[in-house]
């Protein structure tokens, strides 16, 4: 009896957190998303908000664009983070390991806003890169590198770098060096050793890193708005504007649920395609 009570008490914070901050608001949101305004202070229940999403090409396009760009950002982050993580886990020795890891961490000591402003200072027309290019004679006039998809991608990758490096370093550290040596002894070259030994071992790290980075990119608001400029409509921005600017909580709530469904579906599909399960990755 007493042990059971202790268990419940220990669980209480988690249950309260889940119940009060996650489940209840979501139920409320769901009901809001089923309402439609028909007149001043009058509402009707139905699926009109979801219908609006599927009939307005703009919403669908933004939705697809956000998803594709997030997948791309995740892939790019993986490609860049893998060598970094491999170097930290396998090549660097002793103190260097810690120092290099710290270098990855340091940018995250300042807020995301400040980091994004940093990129704006570098990329803008009167910014650092543009001035250097002109000074070096590589450009005739000011070059604008801000306010396009590439700038946004740079921002997204930079923001989520750490969340890919950490799980990769952890999984790669657990790889026994003798396995790699054995691979070479058995006549493998760099590529086959990478494909047959290192990559399979790193899969759990890749999967968990990718899930986190994908979710962060999909739900990012700041980077697309600040670096992306005039063509950068991101789905979160649309949710924000429905709630705050247009006073249309109903449509905003429906968008929120669709985003939740989309992200869950993409993660599920990616796990299926790569033959992984969530249990294996976490476990």
């Amino acid at each position: 009896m007493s042990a059971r009570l202790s268990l419940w008490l220990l669980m209480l914070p988690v249950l309260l957190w889940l119940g009060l901050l996650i489940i209840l608001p979501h139920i409320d949101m769901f009901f809001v998303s089923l309402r439609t305004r028909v007149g001043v202070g009058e509402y009707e229940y139905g699926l009109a908000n979801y219908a609006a999403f599927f009939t307005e090409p703009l919403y669908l396009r933004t939705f697809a664009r956000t998803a594709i760009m997030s997948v791309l950002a995740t892939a790019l982050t993986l490609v860049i983070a893998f060598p970094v993580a491999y170097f930290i886990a396998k090549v660097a020795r002793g103190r260097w390991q810690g120092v290099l890891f710290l270098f990855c961490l340091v940018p995250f000591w300042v807020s995301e806003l400040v980091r994004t402003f940093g990129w704006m200072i570098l990329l803008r027309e009167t910014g650092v890169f543009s001035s250097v290019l002109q000074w070096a004679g590589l450009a005739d006039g000011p070059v604008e590198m801000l306010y396009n998809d590439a700038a946004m991608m740079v921002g997204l990758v930079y923001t989520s770098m750490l969340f890919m490096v950490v799980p990769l370093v952890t999984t790669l550290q657990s790889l026994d060096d003798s396995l790699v040596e054995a691979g070479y002894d058995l006549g493998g070259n760099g590529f086959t050793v990478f494909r047959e030994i290192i990559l399979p071992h790193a899969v759990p790290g890749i999967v968990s890193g990718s899930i986190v980075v994908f979710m962060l990119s999909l739900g990012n608001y700041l980077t697309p708005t600040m670096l992306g400029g005039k063509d950068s409509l991101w789905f979160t921005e649309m949710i924000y504007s429905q709630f705050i600017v247009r006073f249309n909580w109903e449509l905003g709530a429906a968008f929120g649920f669709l985003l939740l469904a989309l992200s869950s579906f993409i993660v599920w599909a990616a796990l299926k395609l790569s033959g992984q399960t969530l249990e294996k990755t976490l476990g």
Partner: protein
Amino acid sequence: MLTNGTILRGTVATLLGLGALSTSASAETLRLLTWGGYAPEEVIEMFTEETGIEVEVTKSNNEEMIAKLRATGGGGFDLAQPSQDRIAGPQAEFDIYKPIDLSKIETGLFIESMLEATKANTTVDGEVYGVPHVWGTSGLVVNTAEAGSVADYTDLCNEEFAGKVSYRLKRPTLIGFAYAMGLDPFAAYGDEAAYSDIVAQVEEKLIECKANVKAYWDGGDQLMGLLRSGEVVASMAWDTGGWKLNAENPDITFVAPASGALGWIDTFALPKKTKAEDAAYKWINFVMKPEIAAMITASAGNFTASNGADEFADDELKARFQASFPQEAIDNIKWYPTVPAGLEAIEGAALDRVKAAN
């Protein structure tokens, strides 16, 4: 068992303690929901000294004010400062404000015509919900050395300024462009079909114009940076932004567009669940005194509805105002009428399409 009981009691006590903490904070405080610059530190200090009431300032904008008050049913703040055209619609729709008791306000402190106009525009079911505070206009901020020919919103779309202009994707832009295109959006406010038609025409123009735009600005600081660095030579903006930049670089100034600047008045309105109503009235009567109003003008850069505050205002600011607004430009200011509930949805969809267009 004993320890479990203690933990439980401790938890309950902590939760109750947190509850008590959040309610006791509002004893003699005025929680003000306002715009940047409307409640300068020195004015707050003088007010606290005179009345003993502390003032907590939250800076916001029209949309956020309404969203915040809507989320709490009109709670969390004791006095808000939405624009006069954004009170009647949200009040009818969400019931977030409390009528103003005009007998508690020293009406003699206000410029009468402005007070009457605001009262008329913020009346719902015979009750007045707002009194005027700060007013100003939006129009064009132009770097006259490089883009001297910009005289109206539509000039921002001229090819010679490609990649060097900016505006916001918000309703003032739709309305400004509509006037510059010879349409009359305010006259169509009551007629949803006619208004949709106007918005559709403006949408087409804005999509066509998109290639010219460097970036759609969001916040005042972002715009200032763009104009100061010379990356943008002409933009749709508030008058104060232009005057502030004019002090730094005489080439840049505010220009009232040929089709008319858009005039706004920010008001005082009482949130429905205000907990410090008396303090709110005291604050209103305090900041409307001419010498205090002049201090707010100095900090916000805009003039107030306070009667006689002009005498105390900074001469340089007055000179800038007169340079931007000759008499015929003042007569041509288009004051925002009350936004009927529901128009924002039409505008919102159009703005989203502009933002997504390629």
